[in-house]
């Protein structure tokens, strides 16, 4: 294994059984490989059923491979005695904020994880305060979680993960149930944790505007990685991405359609500023 990688999938196969008589076993992936370098912000895209959530759950041993291995800092998720260390290293945040909150006061909720690790109370206090400050929820520490907005609840869930001193956070569609403001809050929090604290982030999402903010984008289809690169490299493949049932950002789509009509625009436009500048240059020339 490579010490630069926090998570490695080596030839992973995973299948699950269904209750349905006709198709008893569903093979999600076979011979899957993926490495996540330390400190990376990785976005994983793919349509429903492509295996993204399975990848997320394999990352901290909620699921384990049928064949091959998943290692976290060199520890295999198949080894029972490593599972606690693995979950301390890789924390998960899920889609529905209401299913992840266990306590009736925000700071108790964040303290839940560290308390289970048997950490000293004074250390827990420090970690909870730091985690809540990191996600911008410190002023809300004495509030009742159910009275918070969706974006605030997700930030509390993220704080709960950070309080475990995790090195990596895996988020499975954390903004799917949020409004635009909530989405923005969660995305800024994720970026801050990645840039300022060096936490590795794996973000599973359906939103292309979130994926363009990552260092690297992996696109999955039927259990395999079909595209892998920087957002610019990946979103260039407009046709392939659409064939997979996914989208590209509107700026990319607009530039792509104008290029097809003969406009001389760059093929790697991702955001509105780039697009407006490129268009302005062209139109001033005309």
């Amino acid at each position: 294994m490579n010490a630069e990688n926090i998570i490695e999938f080596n030839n992973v196969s995973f299948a699950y059984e269904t209750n349905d008589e006709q198709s008893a076993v569903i093979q999600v992936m076979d011979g899957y490989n993926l490495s996540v370098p330390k400190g990376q912000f990785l976005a994983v895209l793919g349509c429903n059923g492509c295996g993204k959530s399975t990848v997320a759950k394999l990352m901290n041993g909620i699921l384990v491979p049928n064949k091959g291995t998943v290692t976290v800092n060199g520890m295999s998720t198949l080894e029972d005695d490593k599972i606690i260390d693995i979950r301390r290293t890789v924390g998960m945040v899920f889609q529905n904020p209401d299913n992840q909150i266990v306590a009736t006061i925000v700071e108790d909720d964040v303290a839940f994880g560290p308390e289970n690790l048997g950490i000293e109370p004074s250390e827990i206090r420090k970690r909870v305060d730091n985690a809540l400050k990191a996600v911008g929820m410190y002023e809300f520490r004495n509030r009742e979680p159910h009275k918070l907005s969706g974006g605030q609840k997700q930030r509390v869930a993220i704080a709960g993960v950070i309080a475990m001193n995790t090195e990596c956070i895996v988020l499975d569609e954390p903004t799917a149930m949020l409004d635009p403001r909530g989405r923005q809050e969660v995305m800024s929090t994720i970026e801050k944790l990645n840039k300022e604290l060096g936490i590795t982030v794996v973000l599973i999402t359906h939103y292309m505007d979130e994926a363009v903010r990552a260092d690297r984008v992996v696109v999955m289809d039927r259990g395999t990685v079909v595209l892998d690169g920087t957002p610019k490299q990946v979103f260039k493949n407009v046709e392939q991405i659409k064939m997979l049932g996914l989208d590209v950002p509107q700026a990319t789509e607009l530039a792509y359609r104008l290029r097809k009509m003969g406009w001389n625009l760059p093929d790697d436009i991702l955001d509105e500023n780039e697009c407006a500048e490129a268009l302005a240059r062209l139109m001033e020339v005309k």
Partner: protein
Amino acid sequence: MPIISLKGVTHYYNSGTPNATKALDNINIDIAEGELVGIIGHTGSGKSTLVQHLNGILRPDEGSVIVDGTDIWSNKKATREARFKVGLCFQYPEYQLFEETAYKDIAFGPQNMRLSEDEINNRVMKAAEYVGLKRELLEKSPFDLSGGEKRRVAIAGVIAMEPKVLILDEPTAGLDPRGRDKILKMISDYRTSTGSTVLLVSHSMEDVAKLATKVLVMNNSRVEMYGTVDEVYKNGERLTEIGLNIPQVSKIFQLLKDKGIDLGNAYTVDKAVEILSRKQ
């Protein structure tokens, strides 16, 4: 005559207690038959409270809700009729499936309307076709279906009641882009072929821009704006202030305007391509 008319509707949560909060504050709107109204606003702005007034799930503390010419709280019969005239499909409706088969789930609403067996069967089949569910899926347990299929079963259950007004609360939440486009196309086709009025509650400014004939913006329990896509979306700054966003193409056109290139407004990629292609 508007199909829905709200006159001075005010609603309090925890009414009569010290915790009383105004969830709707003097709402006055008319919705014409056949419109597709996009309802937007941040969480807690009053969108869901508003739509729950339209079929009598919630009763206003002040004001009146008029559906198809009748005040729905004027008598018991009117209230009952409103429940069938206005079909409401909640957010994540797949969690509300409960029958043994998809067929029975879709048939639940029509059964409550006390229709004949033939008519119920007829409606279930028609509704299943509208949402694109294959016949063989109807005999399966809803729990063996995929997420997108479950959602379509739930929507079919509302459509099968043949409501004059169909309200969908975040029908595409959690779906991938292909699943989202399928549902949106289905909603739009349903409206064109039946002439029904559709209300679409959504966080996606892009989806609303593509489909809606009118946009209703809720903010702090009040109607902030109500008008065509153009009338509403041109207020980009105000929309951002109240926690919403404008589509990326609209931002591109705004940036071009700031650079002295005024091309008017575009809220969808199609519209942007159309405007720009005229410039070529």
